[in-house]
């Protein structure tokens, strides 16, 4: 019986981990949401343009994938807000920085417990919500450098 319970627990954990990976997949098909995906190959092609910019993203070496999820409709916004809540409470993710100003809020979330690592920037405004996901082999140190880059 013990073995049975342990097995079930392991399976549940595996399913939970896999379910997390699919959190953004639904947006690819949602009509109320603007969904942008840039995979590694396209990212490499656009790399020259990126390096020309004095960009924050330039601090993150090894970006393999980028997702921009954005919505200003009630349905899309509520779904994004719900997922931001889920990600903020996920123990696999670390909240790096968060701010609220009036009706706006922003949260920086990072995880190196997944492969590839993920940096998520979630913004919630009165009429619009968006999630930016950068996935790659960058470290937390690089993320901190990016967050402090504005001061320089």
């Amino acid at each position, binding site marked *: *019986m013990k073995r*049975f319970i342990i097995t079930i627990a*392991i*399976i549940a954990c*595996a399913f939970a981990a896999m379910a997390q990976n699919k959190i953004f997949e639904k947006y690819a098909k949602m009509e109320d949401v603007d969904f942008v*995906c840039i995979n590694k190959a*396209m990212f490499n092609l656009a790399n020259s343009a990126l390096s020309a910019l004095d960009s924050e*993203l330039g601090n993150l070496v090894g970006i393999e994938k980028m997702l921009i999820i954005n919505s200003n409709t009630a349905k899309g916004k509520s779904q994004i807000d719900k997922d931001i809540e889920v990600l903020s409470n996920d123990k696999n993710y670390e909240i790096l920085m968060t*701010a609220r100003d009036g009706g706006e809020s922003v949260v920086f979330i990072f995880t190196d417990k997944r492969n590839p690592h993920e940096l998520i920037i979630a*913004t919630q405004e009165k009429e619009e919500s968006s999630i930016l996901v950068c996935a790659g082999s960058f470290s937390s140190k690089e993320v901190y450098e990016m967050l402090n880059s504005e001061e320089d």
Partner: protein
Amino acid sequence: MTMETKSNIESLLSRFYAGETTPAEEKKLMDFFRSDDVSAELEADRKLFLSMAELADTHIPDDIATEINAFVGNLNDSETEKNPELASRQPKSNVFRQEKPPKTIWYRIAAAVSLIAIVGVCIMQFQNQESNESPFHDTCTSVEEATMQIERANSIISRSIQMCKKPAQEAIQKTNSRINKIKNNNVKL
């Protein structure tokens, strides 16, 4: 023995051998064969019933298992005294040791479920790894579009960092101005 009794007994006997008699009828037969009023024709049946009655009357003491264990123990002890090498070979278990109830069915079910689950998870992980390279399709059809979207992402990040730092900078400025005020007041005093 009357003819009526005889036919009745024969009928009961035929039903007994057919396995159709009730316990009450069997008792009736037993009582009949225990009596002396049994004809010679039924002698074979009488012997059978009497032998069955003897078996039924056998009393098995409740502590028979303990007695046998003690007896076997004594035998073992005397044997080991004679030959000490036997002691290491003999099992230390009780002769009438109660075995644990078999749990093999549950173990088998648990093993089968575990195996199926492990195989399932492995297959799913394998599929996930295969699709991990590109779980989403590129939405940008050109490098220019990708560049534009990267710029957009960059502006989101820049704005978000500013938004996070703005309250902190304001708080630092307020604190600095208060410190300066306090310093100025102290100088005046």
